């Protein structure tokens, strides 16, 4: 009989783990984003493909180089920067000059993530940090859209895509307004079917609401996403815009348009739910979602910009710490005590 126990390993309990690991979660988010990415390439052709590739490449490379520079092992293996790169790419206008895409990618990772201490401490969603700073830097380029499903999209590029670095892009002859801009500036509603399936103009990956929903549902089913956040965002947006629409249908957009247009779907499903920047308690998540929904509707309805999801989520990220504090759970057995003191 063997003599067991020559090399016993001592660890403290528990000795088994659930099997989820940071990299598995992150990888699954990437999986959930793949159909959206594929559709984006299908809808915007070469421009979409190049934008996404450049976004991804610049983010991953920046992360790698920063890790190298600070003498730490590279962290691109945990897939988190891949998500950042993909999400960032998906929020960009397809005709954006590639050099701007690259600049934004560096901003995403350097300013949104590395500066705060890397994964786990990136208080603001890195993809949105990059996107927001880029929009502040190049407001015109970031609000110029091309129509989806253009005829020659697989053979030619919008003239702006290959603009030389640091030079101003020439605006293409064929630009197209997003559904939200159409509503905001000329009160034109886009057909619901087009909105849901993504036959509209907009950012590379925000157009197909159906695929975004499917990706989100996959993650929710695998418990890799907090369903409360998208649900309360959608709820808040639907209720608010619904009430406004009922009051004055000509002035205020219908809830359907609000829900299925712009970056709301993508933002609510994949960016507001970024674990690092969202609250930890369930009640906190509901409040967080409601706040994002409210701010989105306010900016879209009364603000200067047609779209406000990005700012709403960044604001949500900023108040997360407070939400966590206010919605702290009552520790088991302290209910009576707190009432007494």
């Amino acid at each position, binding site marked *: 009989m063997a003599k067991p126990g020559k090399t016993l390993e001592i660890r403290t309990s528990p000795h088994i783990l659930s099997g989820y690991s940071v990299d598995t979660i992150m990888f699954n988010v990437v999986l959930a984003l793949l159909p959206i990415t594929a559709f984006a390439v299908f809808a915007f052709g070469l421009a979409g493909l190049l934008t996404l590739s450049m976004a991804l490449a610049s983010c991953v490379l920046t992360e790698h180089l920063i890790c190298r520079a600070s003498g730490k092992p590279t962290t691109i293996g945990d897939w988190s920067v891949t998500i950042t790169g993909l999400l960032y790419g998906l929020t960009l206008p397809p005709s954006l000059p590639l050099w701007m895409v690259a600049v934004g990618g560096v901003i995403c990772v350097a300013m949104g993530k590395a500066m705060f201490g890397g994964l786990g401490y990136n208080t603001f969603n890195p993809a949105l940090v990059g996107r927001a700073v880029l929009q502040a830097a190049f*407001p*015109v380029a970031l609000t110029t859209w091309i129509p989806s499903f253009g005829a020659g999209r697989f053979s030619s590029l919008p003239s702006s895509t290959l603009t030389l670095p640091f030079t101003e892009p020439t605006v293409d002859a064929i*630009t197209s307004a997003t559904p939200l801009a159409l509503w*905001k*500036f000329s009160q034109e509603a886009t057909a619901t079917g087009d909105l849901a399936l993504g036959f509209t103009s907009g950012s590379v990956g925000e157009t197909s609401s159906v695929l975004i929903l499917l990706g989100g549902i996959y993650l929710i089913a695998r418990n890799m996403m907090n369903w409360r956040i998208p649900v309360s965002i959608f709820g808040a947006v639907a209720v608010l815009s619904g009430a406004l629409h009922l009051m004055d249908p000509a002035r205020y957009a219908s809830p359907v348009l609000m829900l299925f247009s712009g970056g709301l779907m993508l933002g609510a499903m994949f960016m507001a739910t970024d674990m690092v920047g969202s609250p930890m308690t369930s009640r906190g998540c509901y409040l967080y979602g409601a706040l994002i929904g409210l701010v989105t509707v306010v900016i879209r309805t009364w603000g*200067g910009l047609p779209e406000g999801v990005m700012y709403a989520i960044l604001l949500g990220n900023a108040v997360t710490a407070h939400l966590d504090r206010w919605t702290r759970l009552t520790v088991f057995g302290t209910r009576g005590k707190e009432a007494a003191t």
Partner: protein
Amino acid sequence: MSETELVSRPAPPSIWHMYRAMVGVGIVCGLLIVTAFQVTRPIIERNKAEALQKAIFHVLPNASTSATYRLDESGGFLVLEGKGVGAELVYAGYDDNHELMGLAVEAQGMGYQDVIGVIYGYSFAEEAIIGIQVLESKETPGLGDKIESDPEFLENFERLDVSLRDDLSEMANPIVPVRHGEKTHPWEVDGITGATISSVAIADILNRSAQYWMPRIRSHLSDFQGDFQGEE
């Protein structure tokens, strides 16, 4: 200083010392301020007047002299004498032959970021706005601030119709903003793509101001025709 502390502890400085210090310093400071004010005042006032004149001539291209009028309680216009604090002012522009070319009017309203202030020129002959200059704006650089520089946008104001109804009670057509490239009427303002809010704001500011001023000005046209010759 520790030395002062040692001294001051047992016997704090008398009230007299404090008064002396405060009043002394106060008098010197007051003298300094008033001197600076007196020395610079004429220069500043000249600068301001020059800047205003430049703006008036900019929006009334054919004018070479100008005069300031204020709206009287009676509804008529009088030449401004002294300071125009609290009064509602318009500036009349005259050409080399002392012919009245038009009026320059200041207007302001809310833009994208903050208040936008403009001055625009009104031509009696054309019954239209013939020039505009932004005096004050914090619009987004590169986007909203195109209202100051975008040539296509500024073309709107080479001849923007503000004609009145026959009874001079109100404007025939309000100034309305339209989307870029959709201007069909002379009273429409062709917007700037990507800077919609700012261009709409300009149209609104002009509309509000014109709605207020045009009937008043037209009904007292003769007030500006006086034999007054504007200053160069």
